């Protein structure tokens, strides 16, 4: 069970059970929907950006432990960051999942997902929603397309 332990690290199990920022954001000026139709994971993301800084961020939705914890940890990680810094974190997270070095801080907890290719899309979904929200892309995002 070592590798399962690496996937379901305590921090992930904790954020799954008690997701942070699991709420709508009053005065949100960015929004995105994420949906993986085949597996059913769903996220609705609110962001309030002022002067290039993420002043508040929250999410709602349903999904597996990986997707819920990823969304929770993401909101914690980008809260108070500039959009440029958030984009940098997106890149670092994405790089980690595709074989690169660990992402900073608690995000490193998701390094274990690499060994579970079927679950990468779960860890990714909220991050792609974030990018869509920041870039004001109206379309719902998905991380399920095999071309991704």
């Amino acid at each position, binding site marked *: 069970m070592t590798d399962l332990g690496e996937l379901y690290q305590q921090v992930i*199990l904790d954020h799954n059970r008690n997701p942070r920022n699991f709420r709508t954001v009053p005065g949100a000026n960015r929004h995105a929907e994420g949906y993986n139709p085949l597996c059913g994971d769903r996220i609705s993301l609110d962001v309030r950006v002022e002067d290039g800084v993420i002043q508040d961020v929250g999410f709602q939705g349903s999904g597996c432990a990986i997707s819920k914890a990823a969304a929770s940890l993401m909101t914690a990680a980008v809260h108070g960051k500039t959009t440029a810094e958030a984009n940098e974190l997106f890149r670092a997270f994405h790089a980690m999942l595709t074989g690169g070095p660990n992402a900073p801080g608690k995000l490193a907890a998701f390094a274990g997902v690499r060994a579970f290719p079927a679950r990468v899309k779960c860890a990714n979904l909220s991050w792609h929603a974030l990018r869509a929200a920041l870039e004001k892309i109206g379309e719902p995002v998905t991380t399920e397309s095999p071309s991704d």
Partner: protein
Amino acid sequence: MLDTVSVRADFPILAREENGKRLVYLDNAATSQKPRKVLDAIQHYYHFHNANVHRGAYTLAVEATEAYEAGRTAVAGFVNAWAREAVVFTRGTTESINLVASSWGRTNVQPGDRVVVTAMDHHSNIVPWQILCQEKGATLRMVEITEDGRIDLSDFGRALESKPKIVAFPYVSNSLGTVNPVAQLTRLAHAAGAVAVVDGAQAAPHLRVDVQAIDCDFFAFSGHKMLAPMGSGALIAKPALLEAMPPYHGGGEMIERVWDDHATWNKIPHKFEGGTPNVEAAVGLGAAIAYLEQLGMDRVAEHESALARVAIERLTQIESVTIYGPRDHRAGVVPFTYGDIHPHDLATILDRDGVCIRAGHHCTQPLMRRLGVAATARASFYIYNDVDDIDALVSALRKAGELFGVPA
């Protein structure tokens, strides 16, 4: 019960390990594994008889045509079809139902008409009817299910009051395991003046099908769920209906004469088999049917119900497990949830122990909404599964419970 030791020996993939563990394949409702006899039949076909059929005057082509048509004969016998020409080869259930919606549906459904499906139908038996209704200005009516996961017969009756043109329902639900009273539903549909379309995807692999006894108008199934290769399947239909229907795919094989601006059609079933037929699929389906008939479909059904009973009994002993579907009249499909562990997490955790189950909406989103869940986990059995597989399932589940801190 079947002699699973000898059955398992026929399936090369079951000798494979998954993550260092014996492969415990419990996703049979999604697709089945293939016995050596089916794979050998396919190889043999390509090694000795491969050619395009029906149009060849040389030996190879005659052999290929005979192999193809022997597959049709086997299917006709397997489901007790009205005649050989009642069997139209398709890629599988989805294509079969789309064929009916496109050909019979477009010809017969008018604005204002009704089409009835059930809330336990697979997307493949819902979406084609939605598309048809949207195109024709008809209305789709979804029959509700009971608390314990059966078709609500009084709602079914109410739906029939509007005199629908088409009534579609599954023989066996892939998300609940319910075995529906298809002969009765067909009788009611006919009394209301509708044609009855039976989605047999979860029935043909698992129990003895008799389309004449059911008296349905259309019966669809997939070969890949019953030991045959992917890309195999059929639509069985009453010949008189097929005669009257326009063709589906235009192209080779299905024509009688082609003029510059119009064409006339070949006899049934060829009218519906445009393009080069998939001889491999027919050969593989024939071999799969021979394999199943040697076991005996009654024994197959019995084996799977027995496994389902054992699985339900064991799973019920785990405090936080909820099982979906009716107590009786169920096939070897066992859908469940385990506390608040998401089914995808369950599937990942079980996979580490070599146990393959499905997690998700199982292509039945309207049903999931009614069950009030986004997803369930599902174990589904076939001829090679045994009680050891259930043990493996249960012990892997207990590990998941530990990891997530859910009461066992």
